[in-house]
């Protein structure tokens, strides 16, 4: 297999609250022989917020992000955040389908020495492993099958929808996370909130709703026998991990549920220690559970 090489778009959270995701993404990619080169000068994708203020700007900043990757000679950019993936892919789709919009954006970019060409695809870590790297190849690299670990996969919305932008799998019943976890030797559990929303994008105006939903996610995952939630999105991670103590206040039953980033799960199977995957950087501590479950 030719060496996989991606322009890497970390997204804001990896620079702050989800620093552990950057660590785990970079370490697992290196271990798998996947080259990541951080896009120089990338900015926030707009986070499903900026288009609510300025629609054109929401497209333009991502045209710039993609153009930076194109300029650096990449034909594929990798993200580890559902929303970054959606924002970048939405911008790309609109630019590719709307010539006038593309011309307008380039009118702004060209004086900066940039041009959006449309030659760089956008993918997500999960898709890259399933589609580009291949699960059979991944299986061969597994040093520590996670056979004692039961995982509840929490997809998040933006890696699935809208399907005309994302299109990787059917949003009514996606399978990629289960397939990946299976390749790592973990046991998948089905639970009611597998396709729920973490509520992150309105976590202030609709905090009650998010806390209630995430509490139910934890509870139903526990009831299904899960040891942890796994998510491909740092925003889902924040909403469920960082706010879990607030969710708990709404429930009598103990909802405690550690949440792992997808690359952390991959890393554990590749033989990294929880500390190497910076799992100690979560609010809900996963270490005691992992100590028991990792053999």
């Amino acid at each position: 297999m030719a060496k996989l090489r991606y322009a890497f778009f970390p997204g804001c959270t990896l620079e702050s609250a989800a620093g552990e995701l950057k660590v785990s993404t970079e370490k697992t990619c290196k271990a798998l022989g996947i080259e990541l080169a951080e896009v120089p000068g990338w900015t926030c994708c707009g986070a499903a917020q900026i288009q609510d203020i300025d629609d054109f700007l929401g497209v333009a900043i991502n045209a710039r992000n993609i153009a930076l990757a194109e300029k650096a000679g990449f034909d594929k950019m990798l993200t580890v955040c559902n929303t970054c993936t959606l924002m970048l892919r939405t911008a790309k789709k609109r630019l590719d389908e709307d010539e006038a919009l593309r011309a307008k954006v380039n009118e702004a970019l060209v004086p900066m020495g940039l041009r959006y060409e449309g030659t760089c695809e956008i993918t997500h870590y999960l898709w890259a492993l399933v589609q580009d790297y291949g699960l059979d190849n991944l299986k061969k690299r597994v040093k520590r099958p996670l056979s004692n670990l039961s995982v509840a996969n929490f997809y998040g919305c933006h890696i699935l929808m809208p399907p005309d932008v994302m299109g990787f799998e059917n949003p009514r019943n996606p399978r990629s996370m289960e397939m990946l976890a299976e390749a790592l030797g973990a046991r998948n559990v089905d639970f009611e909130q597998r396709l729920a929303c973490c509520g992150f994008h309105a976590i202030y105006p609709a905090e009650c709703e998010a806390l209630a939903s995430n509490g139910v996610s934890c509870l139903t995952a526990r009831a299904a026998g899960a040891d942890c939630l796994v998510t491909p999105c740092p925003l889902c991670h924040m909403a469920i991990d960082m706010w879990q103590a607030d969710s708990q206040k709404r429930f009598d039953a103990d909802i405690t549920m550690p949440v792992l980033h997808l690359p952390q799960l991959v890393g554990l199977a590749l033989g990294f220690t929880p500390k190497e995957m910076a799992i100690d950087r979560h609010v809900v501590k996963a270490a005691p559970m992992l100590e028991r479950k990792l053999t």
Partner: protein
Amino acid sequence: METITFNIKRFDGERTWNQEYRLPRETSTLLGCLTKIREEQDPTLNFTSNCRAAICGSCAVQVNGSAFLACETQLDALLDTYQTTTLYLEPLNHFPVVRDLVVDFAPVEKGMRKVDAWLCPSKERRDHLQSEADFHKIAKPADCILCGVCVSECRELAYDDGTYLPPAMMNKAYRFERDSRDGERGKRVLAALKNNLWKCIHCEQCSSKCPKKIPVADEVSYLRRRAIALGETKSEGARHAFSFYDDVRATGLLNETMLALRTEGLGKTVANRMPFAIRMVAAGKMNPLHAPKPVPGIESVRKLYEFSQKMEKEV
């Protein structure tokens, strides 16, 4: 021949139970299967349908936790999607259930009243003209068949206290706000705002599941931009969006440390967020002393802001 099991949630006004029916697998729509069950196995099973052609909006039901229009959904497609021979059918979420799969759509009329979902013709209007471009602005939202799929799938409504405006009504608000013939532009924006416009979580369920492919989540963004254009910038949702907008201009990156403060204001943050902040700092997730430095090339980002602000465009 393969046998397909339909596990249907029943309700008779008092009691709820699940009942299983079996049919041989054959090419049929989901509605065809339901009709066959009612006519050949159980006349007490109730569901609604009329046109069979995806225009009347009567027959939406949930299958395996997701809403479909029964008349336009092939059984084979469902079995393929769910990789199963057992389908679980339930009535739509977020509507009162009358019996079995039948729900009461009366809340739709109430929702329409909340956003004045009708044309208020401009008083000055003397002709009956509308440009083709203006027609195209309302053509897509006017496709709505009020089937309730988006309402059922909406993740905000799943845990809402009953005050949020369902996506179908967001679409109505958008449809009339954008009608060039209307004399009360802005009215539906303010109505949507009053009904928690900023609570939409952009989960994209509405846009993704709509049988008519109406991009409702994008319409919500439009309504928010219009609300801001009307000077409505003080709500938490608007302030939250502005935090992102301002941070990207300042440094290219979000300053998470300041997010709560700027969204909720100093008072509420101090009152509510201290335990949260302490948790973050303890986990190493937040460093109150750290503020992002501007990314390389931040000048070009700021130029994009200037470019966009100078551009002539609709909100």
